[in-house]
């Protein structure tokens, strides 16, 4: 079976996110009052061939642990849907 995997990688909450801060300042200066805690991460989508949905999730998590996310600085979430 083929699955579509959506990985969301975000900088860990305790760490300074200067990109998020810069975008937040820009949004506020555009007049979007009340904007706060902007954080910028990345989204990665890919196809995975696996025998089951659980196997696809396990494979995606292994990809995150080994390459897609840095365990020192980032957290990730994985969503999987049938292709």
């Amino acid at each position, binding site marked *: 079976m083929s699955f579509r995997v959506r990985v969301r990688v975000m*900088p860990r909450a305790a*760490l*300074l996110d*200067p*990109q998020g801060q*810069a975008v937040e300042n820009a949004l506020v200066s555009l007049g979007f009052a009340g904007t706060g805690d902007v954080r910028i991460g990345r989204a990665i989508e890919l196809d995975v061939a696996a025998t089951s949905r659980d196997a696809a999730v396990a494979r995606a998590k292994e990809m995150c642990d080994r*390459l*897609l996310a*840095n365990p*020192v*600085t980032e957290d990730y979430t994985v969503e999987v849907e049938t292709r």
Partner: protein
Amino acid sequence: MRKVAVVRFPGSNSEMDAMRAAEMAGADAVLVWHRDTSLGRADVVVLPGGFSYGDYLRSGAIARFSPIMAAVQRHAAAGGAVLGICNGFQILCEAHLLPGALMRNAGLTFVSRRVPVTVERTTTPFTSAYERGTALSLPVAHGDGRYVAAPEVLATLEADARVVLRYTTDDPGADSGNPNGSAHNIAGICSADGNIVGIMPHPERAIDREIGSDDGLGFFRSLLAAPVAVHA
């Protein structure tokens, strides 16, 4: 004579400078392609600066899986000397040969200038030619140089004197200060055994007074006393 292997990744840009610096100091330098699997009986490995794989995903994240990195891991595990400069430091962190990570500069801008740094540890293969506390002026050129690590990791680095270079922040000079927001003003660290060193500044770009400074030459003079690798 010590033999230095400088690894060229796709996107490296300081490998020739590193070779020249090693040769100027009196070492024998060879260039090793990242797809090679052997370091060619080198005593010392240098991972040079640059933008390997275009810094895609994260700086150093893809280069750490280059075929040569298995040989670098073996060399390091055997106590061999490894120096990562700038992108090389990022690769060493991604490869878990050094703790922590290097994130986007706090000011978001690419910083390219000379910065004052202090040599805090001299018992490494790359800083033994300096006196502890020596003030150097070294070039930095990076966008992702903000050193971060978990609080307990930072505490260990400090307690075990593993901060090799620190940005000088109490110097009255105009260029003084932490250029990227690094934790504890860290500019470079080493492994627990001291044989693996990662630094953001570029000593290989400061080896000749004719072009500004030779403050960095000591990194390469030091390696003349580095352990000779034992090759099976």
